[in-house]
């Protein structure tokens, strides 16, 4: 059985990718299963979708824990534990990351047992959330890596899935998928069909006994306010607002008032402070700041800059001692 997981952000088309891939499998006579996995999160939040395909009836259910192929549409997700990108990667697993960085870099950084491949980002866009057709690109690459899916089936699956969007969009998607299919040619068939997992190998979770509490304790009642602040919605962000305090004229209210999430507060001196753990990256503050003191920086660039700064700081300390 083939087990494939697509990781991306809400809005990047991972659900579409999983539907296209499973449909393409189906056209080749496979039994298939596909499902997206997301909670109450929205655009930008880490999500994944998975596909199972086999020549026999599929009895396995639920999330894929031992993937044969993992496709990552957005490399900024790899570092987010909650996104679960690296979960269950074994020596057989092929991990394909949409990234500007080299496979070697990722191999060294992650130290995973499987093979790392790079899906070169087809267009130079700063904001990954804006990458159109990422879903079909991922499905196209996956189909070729798996090796047994002919291009016609992939194309038919795309037509079926996207017909309602009109011919212009379907054509563009077909072209994107074909390009990705071609790009992955070098690694055609790299993905090896995983073995059946027998029920005997199933490790029971370690159950914990929960005493039966009275309803006043056990009911899902929230007894304290503001707990939402524990949810790190900052992981949704692909672009980061960065304030140039030289330019900020301390009007204090524009960015802070218009931030829908209330993630911008103003300090005693009237300077706005952005809570990056919570900022979802809508960029309203960037659009509204009267003196244009807030800039949108790609999250990956901002993180790299932070890491470099931290290293330099440590080195500077080292020099002194």
């Amino acid at each position, binding site marked *: 059985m083939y087990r494939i997981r697509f990781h991306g952000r809400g809005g990047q088309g991972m659900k579409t990718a999983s539907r296209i891939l499973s449909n393409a499998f189906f056209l080749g006579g496979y039994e298939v299963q596909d499902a997206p996995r997301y*909670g*109450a*999160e*929205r*655009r*930008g*939040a880490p999500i994944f979708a998975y596909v199972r395909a086999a020549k026999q009836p599929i009895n396995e259910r639920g999330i894929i824990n031992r993937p044969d192929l993992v496709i990552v549409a957005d490399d900024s997700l790899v570092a987010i534990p909650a996104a679960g990108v690296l979960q269950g990667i074994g020596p057989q697993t092929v991990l394909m990351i949409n990234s500007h960085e080299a496979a070697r870099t990722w191999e060294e950084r992650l130290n995973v047992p499987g093979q790392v491949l790079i899906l070169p980002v087809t267009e130079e866009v700063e904001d990954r959330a804006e990458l159109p057709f990422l879903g079909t690109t991922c499905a196209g690459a996956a189909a070729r890596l798996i090796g047994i899916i002919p291009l016609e089936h992939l194309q038919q699956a795309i037509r079926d899935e996207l017909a*309602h969007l009109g011919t212009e969009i379907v054509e563009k998607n077909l072209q994107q998928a074909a390009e990705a299919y071609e790009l992955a040619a070098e690694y055609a068939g790299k993905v090896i069909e995983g073995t059946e997992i027998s029920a005997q190998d199933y490790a029971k979770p370690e159950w914990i006994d929960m005493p039966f509490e009275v309803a006043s304790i056990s009911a*899902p009642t*929230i007894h304290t*306010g*503001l*707990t*939402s*602040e*524990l*949810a*790190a*919605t900052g992981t*949704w*962000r692909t672009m980061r607002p960065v304030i140039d305090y030289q330019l900020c004229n301390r009007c*204090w*209210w524009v960015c*802070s*008032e*218009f*931030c*829908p*999430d*209330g*993630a911008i*507060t*103003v300090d005693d001196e009237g300077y706005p402070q952005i*809570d990056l753990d*919570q900022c*979802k*990256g*809508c*960029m*309203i503050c*960037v*659009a*509204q700041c009267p003196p244009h003191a807030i800039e949108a920086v790609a999250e990956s660039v901002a993180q790299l800059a932070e890491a470099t700064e931290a290293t330099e700081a440590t080195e500077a300390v080292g020099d002194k001692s």
Partner: protein
Amino acid sequence: MTETAFRRMKDLPSTRLLGTGTPMCAGCGGLLALHEIYDILGEKTVFINAAGCMTLLSVYPFTPFRGSWLYTSMASAPAGAQGVRDALDILLEQKRISADEDLQTVVLTGDGSAYGMGLSATSGAIDRNLDFLYICYDNEGYGNTGQQFSEATPHAAKTSTSSGPRGFPGFKKDLFDIWAANRPAYVATVIGTEPLDLARKIEKAKNMKGPRLIIALAPCPTGWDYDPKETVEIGKLAVKTGVWPLKEYIDGKVVHTKIPRQRKPVEEYLQKQGRFAHLFKPERNEKLLAEIQQRIDVYWEGISNE
């Protein structure tokens, strides 16, 4: 007219009472209005919330509120508010809580509930002169389930259930007038992108008794199909083009609180949203555009600074 504490922008509160970390979409115009409203209403509130996007605000174990929140089905938030109000009144009467501990009963629903499914329960609550504040965030569709059209969807808008070349064939229902016809204590339209106008209206509503309604137009990047960073721009255009009249019903009269001096052509508002893209592409639908413009012009005829 009562004195307002909000004469200029700098008078707006900066407390940010509503917690961060909610699952609302990035750039949600409904959340924008809610955080502004909450800063003025304060902590002594209990929210009764009908199914919709904002139900997700309080998903166990998370809540962005400082006080209580209760979930009801789509059609029955005002009925839920009746129960809560009654309970508070009984507690007050029996002196089990002090007047100081009393709470403002606030219904919070989307347009799907407010304009449609919940209207019957609303009507009953107004008839019983229930002391409550109804806040409707109007994103002009069933946002939470993928933007199907609602009774608040504007003419010609594309939704997932009106995707033909002319979009939604119906017209946006006039909830303001429906409420006003019932002679409640207060009705007002607001939008998060006009925070001063919003603050003054919430301040008034907060200090009144009886049924009160606030309808907040809620630009919705997901349902209206635009880049989240445009939320404020689109909201401002809704006011400047006259699409969203800011007004209030008070003491039996309707007063417009912000009359756009030189109304911008409605196209400027429509063009920014994917849900109206079919009015411009593959070619301009001049007839439909003119119809939409004309309806706005007719509305504003004869309305001047009172």
